[in-house]
C-alpha cells in the first residue's frame, strides 16, 4: 500500500484550534512525501531543470560569504588578501545567482510553468527576482568607492521622484548597510523559501507535450484523456 493510499484510510482528525487547523492544512497540502520526495518524474532528467537549484546553491554561497564579510567589516575586506578573496566570492556568487536565475526564468517561461495551479509559484519566483535586484543594487552601493558614489547619486533622484526617498535613502550608507545585510537578505530568503515550498506542494511542472500522454502526471496536470 502506498503512502497516499494509507493516508486515505486513516480516520479524519477534527481540528478545533488555530494550531490544529494549521497542522491539518499543512498535512493536507504539504505531506511528507511531497516535502521530501523519494523520486522525481522522468521528465525532470534534463539540464533545463537544474538552474533553479543552481540559483539556490549560489544564494547559499552569497549568504555565507556575506556573513563572513559583515562579521569582519570593511576595514578587513578592503585591505587583507583573504578579505579580498571573500569579497570576490560574494560578488561572483551574485553573478552566478543572477545568471542561473535568469536561465531558470527563461526555461520556466517557455514551458508556461504557471500551468496546473502554479500561479503563486510563478508570482513568488518573479518576486524573488525583483527583491534580489534591490539587494544587488544596495550591494553595489556598499563598495564604498567612486563607483558606488556615482551609482548612489545617479539613483537618488529617481528614488526621490518615486516617493520612497525618505525611507530608502541611497546616499545614507548606514541605512543602506542595514537594508543590505538584514532586511533584504531576510526578504530574499523568505520569498525563495516560499517559492521552493510551493514547488514541492504542486510538484515540478511537466513539459507542455507531456500533459496529454505522461502517466506520471497527477492532479490538475492530467487531462481527462489520461484519467
Amino acid at each position: 500500500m502506498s503512502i497516499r493510499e494509507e493516508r486515505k484510510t486513516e480516520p479524519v482528525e477534527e481540528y478545533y484550534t488555530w494550531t490544529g487547523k494549521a497542522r491539518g492544512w499543512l498535512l493536507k497540502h504539504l505531506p511528507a512525501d511531497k516535502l521530501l520526495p523519494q523520486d522525481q518524474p522522468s521528465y525532470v532528467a534534463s539540464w533545463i531543470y537544474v538552474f533553479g537549484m543552481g540559483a539556490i546553491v549560489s544564494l547559499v554561497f552569497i549568504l555565507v560569504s556575506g556573513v563572513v564579510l559583515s562579521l569582519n567589516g570593511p576595514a578587513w575586506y578592503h585591505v587583507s588578501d583573504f578579505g579580498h578573496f571573500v569579497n570576490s566570492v560574494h560578488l561572483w556568487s551574485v553573478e552566478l545567482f543572477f545568471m542561473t536565475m535568469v536561465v531558470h526564468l527563461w526555461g520556466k517561461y517557455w514551458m508556461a510553468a504557471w500551468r496546473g495551479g502554479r500561479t503563486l509559484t510563478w508570482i513568488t519566483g518573479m518576486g524573488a527576482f525583483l527583491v534580489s535586484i534591490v539587494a544587488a543594487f544596495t550591494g553595489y552601493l556598499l563598495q564604498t568607492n567612486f563607483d558606488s558614489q556615482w551609482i548612489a547619486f545617479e539613483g537618488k533622484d529617481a528614488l526621490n521622484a518615486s516617493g520612497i526617498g525618505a525611507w530608502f535613502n541611497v546616499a545614507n550608507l548606514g541605512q543602506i548597510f542595514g537594508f543590505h545585510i538584514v532586511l533584504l537578505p531576510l526578504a530574499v530568503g523568505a520569498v525563495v523559501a516560499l517559492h521552493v515550498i510551493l514547488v514541492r506542494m504542486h510538484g515540478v511542472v511537466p513539459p507542455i507535450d507531456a500533459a496529454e500522454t505522461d502517466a506520471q502526471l497527477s492532479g490538475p496536470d492530467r487531462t481527462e484523456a489520461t484519467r
Partner: protein
Amino acid sequence: MHPLISYFASLDSPGVYLGWGAFQIQLGNLIVILVMILLFVLALFLPFPSGKKRP
C-alpha cells in the same frame, strides 16, 4: 606583471563600451548575456546523464 593579472586589474577602469547607432552596451554585460543564452541552448540540447538504477 603577468598579462592576465594586469588584464583583471584593468577591470577597475570604466570598461569597454560597444555601440551600434543608438544602442550601447558594456562588454562585461554583453558577455554575461551571451553566456546565459549559451547555457540556455546547451541545457536544451545536451543529453542529461542517466541516474543510478532503482529497484
